[in-house]
């Protein structure tokens, strides 16, 4: 009995109406503030988080609102007689909407995106996240293999202590900056500073609106490696990797963009750029690549609006870099597990609405005939 009441309350159509209105508000405000704080920050604050704090007041953000909407709509399926001829159209429509929200959830949690950057003549089997970073400890002691221990973005924050059985020391994060620049010390650093930190420090600067342009940096203390104990700095694009040795083992410490490894490789054979006549403005560009899987390669042409789709990954021709005589192609790479959900759920919703409309129409017609 209590359960029925709870279901009735959670599944109230009023809640659905309020969540839809609140989503409209979020979309409107998120779009406006995006101009000032940038796309990524707006997405994080208004859509990808649970709460958006307005001063000390927590307001439901996109994630929580969608969860409430999902629970609200799910309650419909606990109602009686939902498969009766009168309600089956509405049931199908509800299923479609729930699938759409579920697909959104899958995309939010499981999709990965980034850039695959390849120089002409080279090949690569990973892409790097636009926004997320990872701290990597590489044991380079083995003559054949390098052992990587990778700490995900969510673990890289101030005061967190990182450790793993693959290395004999602790990494205590003193600070992490979304955007920073290395600056030379005017005076020599303290004795506790190691590597580049002896002569440089990281200066925090305001984050760029285009979040992917930020140069993130980390300051951390390493404990447990004797003479190599001390404070190190790492930042994206650091020209020389920080290293330490302990107990006849060599380690590298690297902060880099989060990598996703592919089950195949892509080799850039040729990059072509066509300019608008008489200008230096690119009209179109394309990459001729070799898709190498299980030592079998096939040639594929990736052009603007003609991506390569393989094993759930999509590679779009996004940009290029020309540096002297070197040409580099930038392929925006996406793996989205919820990619098909919008298509399928829209079809289901259409079927549901059509069924319900036809049923209501036939009922009206019958009613009209009876009245006559």
């Amino acid at each position, binding site marked *: 009995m209590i*359960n029925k009441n*709870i*279901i009735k309350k959670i599944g109230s159509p009023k809640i659905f109406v309020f969540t839809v209105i609140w989503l409209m508000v979020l979309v409107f405000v998120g779009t406006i503030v995006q101009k000032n704080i940038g796309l990524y920050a707006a997405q994080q604050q208004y859509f990808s988080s649970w709460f958006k704090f307005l001063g000390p007041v927590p307001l439901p953000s996109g994630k929580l609102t969608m*969860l409430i909407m999902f*629970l609200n709509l*799910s309650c419909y399926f*606990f109602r009686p007689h939902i498969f009766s001829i009168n309600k089956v159209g509405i049931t199908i429509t509800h299923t479609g909407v729930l699938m759409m929200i579920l697909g959104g*959830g899958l995309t939010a*949690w*499981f999709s990965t995106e980034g850039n695959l950057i390849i120089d*002409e*003549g080279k090949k690569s*089997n990973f892409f790097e996240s636009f926004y*997320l970073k990872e701290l990597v400890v*590489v044991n*380079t002691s*083995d*003559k*054949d*293999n*390098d*052992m*990587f*221990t*990778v*700490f*995900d*973005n*969510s*673990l890289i924050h101030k005061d967190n202590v*990182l450790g*793993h059985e*693959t290395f004999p020391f602790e990494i205590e994060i003193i600070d992490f900056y979304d955007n920073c*620049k*290395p*600056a*030379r010390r*005017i005076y020599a650093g303290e004795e506790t500073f190691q*590597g*580049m930190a*002896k*002569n440089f420090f990281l200066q925090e600067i305001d984050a760029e609106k285009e979040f992917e342009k930020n*140069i993130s940096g980390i300051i951390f203390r390493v404990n447990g490696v004797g003479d190599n104990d001390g404070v190190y700095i790492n*930042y*994206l*694009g650091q*020209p*020389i*990797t*920080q*290293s330490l040795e302990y107990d006849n083992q*060599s380690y*590298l410490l*690297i902060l880099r963009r989060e990598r996703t490894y592919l089950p195949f490789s892509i080799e850039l054979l040729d990059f072509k750029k066509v300019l608008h006549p008489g200008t230096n403005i690119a009209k179109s560009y394309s990459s001729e690549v070799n898709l190498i899987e299980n030592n079998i390669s096939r040639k594929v042409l990736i052009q603007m609006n003609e991506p390569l789709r393989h094993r759930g990954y999509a590679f779009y021709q996004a940009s290029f*870099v020309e*540096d*002297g*005589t*070197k*040409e580099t192609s930038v392929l925006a790479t996406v793996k989205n597990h919820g990619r098909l959900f919008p298509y399928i759920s829209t079809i289901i919703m259409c079927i549901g609405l059509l069924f319900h409309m036809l049923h209501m129409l036939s009922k009206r017609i019958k009613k009209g005939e009876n009245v006559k």
Partner: protein
Amino acid sequence: MRIFIYFFLIIIYACDENNSVRTYSIPKQHNAFKNIEDKSEKNNLFFSWTSPSHWKEGNVSPMRLASYTIPFSQGKADLSITNFSGDGGGLLANVNRWRGQLKLSSQTLEQVSKNMYTGESGLGQFKLFKIYNNEDHSTAFLCGVFEIEGSTVFVKLSAPLLGVNEIEEEFKKFCSSFKYNDK
């Protein structure tokens, strides 16, 4: 209903995959990182240079891409090559830091620009600074600054003023030899 809620909470918790430590091992040849202990460091760079045969290659350090010991009539000069992302702290700040090391007062950007020479290399134009203190000739600097895509390369020669004067032309040729690596 309770089961439904528990199931949902478990799904949400399980979905948070971005909170982990991963380990993997890959063959060395795929390792694209630059190890400072690796003598083939220069091969990993996208630019290279040509040094005169009598320059002796010195030790690399956490900050240096390369070092050279250069003989002159009354001793040996030290040359370092470093590369930093962005502007490497800024041209003015670096020049004034070098001036500070020679106990010279800081200059404005205009003054720095007046004392600057430029040269051409395969990396494009580079800026050259000769910094010395008239009251103390024991140390002087010749500094080449290359601003390339996304980073700055510094080439710094440190020697007594006599050595700097002797090596100056060779240093300019050395800076001109910087070029992008072939594909």
